[in-house]
């Protein structure tokens, strides 16, 4: 049982927390934009698994992680464009379509993987790390937080970008209006359908990169169903964050910490049944819902398709 709190263990725990948090952060930030615009994007899990698969294939054949991320984003956006077409343009039920897309793409990616690699699970080399000068030399924290792939820092920087978009840009206003009172946006001369479509595509891109990160950097390989609910956790994060990107980051780190705990505790050989440990992230979800869920103020038009002139 010894060594639970050794430096190496703590470093591994924190490093794992960040690695687990990044896909959640990307998914949560992505989902947040859809929700702001009034679209409950349940298909995000399907976008993520597609991003994971296409991203893996891209990285595997090109040998470049960046191409993997771009491919992942493209995959996620392809699924998102289908969602946007059905739910935003044609006004079909967002929950039904979202679930259908998720289930369908989980199946499809498994099938494609099977055709391509049959029963083998080829691995990618370890991702190249970009240490941040000075900071990465801090004991314990340095290697845990500041020796990651460049995309990790970019993902965290996205929090700032999103705050800027929501607070400072015309597009941020448009998004909020699309979610709270789409008719008001429409009569102001901004196309609601287009605004929501952009938001859904952004969600797809972010979820796709998140999926690619999860497979390529987090696991180093693709296995069917690898996202394992990460997209849904992204939805929970976006709901709890009440439109504030910073809270998505905080939530992602908490969930990431729990996920990392489960692996770390197993590695350290702590004698708690693994089943109990694996419940941790979900207990965290429950706890956060109890603490903050009550106050979750959601956009008034969330989940309601917009049709011009209808009353």
């Amino acid at each position, binding site marked *: 049982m010894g060594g639970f709190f050794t430096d190496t263990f703590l470093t591994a725990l924190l490093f794992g927390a960040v690695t687990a948090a990044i896909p959640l952060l990307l998914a949560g930030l992505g989902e947040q934009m859809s929700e702001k615009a009034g679209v409950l994007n349940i298909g995000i899990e399907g976008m993520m698994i597609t991003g994971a698969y296409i991203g893996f294939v891209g990285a595997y054949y090109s040998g470049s992680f960046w191409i993997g991320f771009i491919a992942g984003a493209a995959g996620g956006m392809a699924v998102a464009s289908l969602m946007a077409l059905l739910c935003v343009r044609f006004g079909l039920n967002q929950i039904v379509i979202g679930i259908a897309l998720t289930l369908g793409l989980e199946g499809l990616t498994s099938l494609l993987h099977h055709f391509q690699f049959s029963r083998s699970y080829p691995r990618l080399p370890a991702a190249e790390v970009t240490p941040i000068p000075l900071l990465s030399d801090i004991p314990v924290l340095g290697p845990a937080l500041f020796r990651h792939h460049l995309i990790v820092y970019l993902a965290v920087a996205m929090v700032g970008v999103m705050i800027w978009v929501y607070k400072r840009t015309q597009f941020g206003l448009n998004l909020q*209006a699309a979610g709270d009172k789409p008719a*008001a946006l429409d*009569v*102001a001369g901004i196309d609601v359908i287009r605004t929501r479509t952009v938001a859904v595509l952004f969600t797809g891109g972010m979820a796709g990169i998140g999926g690619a990160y999860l497979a390529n950097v987090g696991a180093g390989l693709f296995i069917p169903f690898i996202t394992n609910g990460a997209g849904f956790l992204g939805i929970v994060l976006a709901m709890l964050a009440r439109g504030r990107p910073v809270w998505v980051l905080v939530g992602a780190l908490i969930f990431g910490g729990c996920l990392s705990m489960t692996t770390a505790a197993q590695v350290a050989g702590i004698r708690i049944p693994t089943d109990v440990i694996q419940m941790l992230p979900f207990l965290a979800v429950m706890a956060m819902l109890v603490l903050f869920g009550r106050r979750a103020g959601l956009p008034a038009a969330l989940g309601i398709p917009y049709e011009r*002139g209808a009353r």
Partner: protein
Amino acid sequence: MEQTQAGPAIVSLEGVTKRFPGIVANDRVDLDIRAGEVHVLLGENGAGKSTLISMLSGLQQPDDGRILIDGVEMPIRSPSHALSLGIGTVFQHNMLVPTLTVAENLALGGRWWQRPRIAELTARVAEIARPLGIDINLGARVSELSLGEQQQVEIVRALLRDSRLLILDEATSMLTPKGIAELGALMRRLVERGLAVVFITHKLGEAADFGDRVSVLKLGRKVGEITSERLRMLERAALVDEIVAMMFGRQAGADEISIPPRAANDDALLEVRELSMAETSDAPGLDRISFAIGHGEILGIAGIDGNGQKQLAEALAGQRPTDSGSVMLAGQALDGLDVGGRRKRGLRYLTDDRLGEGTVGTFPVSINYFLKQIGEPPLWRSGMERTREIDARAIELTRRYDVRTPGISTPVGRLSGGNIQKVLIARELADGARAVIFNKPTYGLDLANTLATRQRVRDIAGQGLAVLLISTDLEELLSMCHRIAVISQGRLVGIVSNGDRAGERVGRLMIGLAA
């Protein structure tokens, strides 16, 4: 009426028809909208005025007929197309985003890559709003403004864009008499600059005062037009008579005064003592409000919109917490009871926000009648909806209150404003009402419905109920109240008995003088 040189038609409708399931909202309407003219559109609730506007502003497409801009056929494809053609609209139903600030709402519609130009806006808004006597707090969140203030914001927004055609769909319904007069003067200045204005109202006086040309719609058809030449010739009274004849085919006494008689029983039925509530940064509070209303008495609350009327109504109804004071109904204290508890005791509240908080727009008319009894017997038994029972009662209420709806399963949001109001009245007066609070009960109603609603309020008092009538329309209060209290910045500054010179005395109180 001043001489205005009417220009050519900048927008013309030719045989425009619009159908909705079960109704022809516009039936082969022809209309010319000319530069330099205020074109007043009149018609009863449900006549199709707003539908016509929605086609001009790109929200709906006509099923038949065509729209010409400067004499050239030009389908208006979308709201942004309408704006680019220079058509600016203030819609009947609020089109502001409640969660954004006033400034952000005004900035809405800018190019997406731009930053909202708040500073630039501030200057332009001041320039437009000052001559109108409008004072807007750009930093306030829209949800915290009264409906009247929101309407002012919408008017300013429409003026911010340099439109050639400005459409005002019942934009005066929430303004004060002074605000309305100023808006009239502004319209005059705008048409003198060569703009065209379409002005929809239910108040014939406004039509006569501000209009250069009047068109009347009835059941979707255009039934008459008074040209500007003729309008200049007519005396005001003759004009009003002619319009009334066109609209209703009969003479109607709009300003008839009739105060319901009451027994000399002065026991207070509804009594309010020292009710107080702290003010917030954007809404006034309540400052030790006290009054009593007897059996069968109508007490009016006069005042300029946004002086605490809504806060008072909501505090009485139990929708807003108060800091101190008490409310007694028939000798029993209501303090601490929530909305449902107060309702059960017989205190009823008819909100002015009919679509927002009064009804659920997507629910059928039938369910909206019983919205506050959902889950309770006899209409619900062990959690089950008793459809047949509900429908039978709904049909009865629809008949009794003369609700014009295609059917009881029609979503209430599809009805015209006046008919939504009738659904609300029907609901709130049911089962054991003792005291009723009306907040602007006739706002947005046409003349016939306004008179019917006023009569209904009188009848309610006639049955011995206590009535609190909040209104910004002084004529309305004078036409039916026993006493009129004046509210100013959350304080009752005086109570006047209705009678000789009451209007003058209330008016003096409203502008801050002693009665």
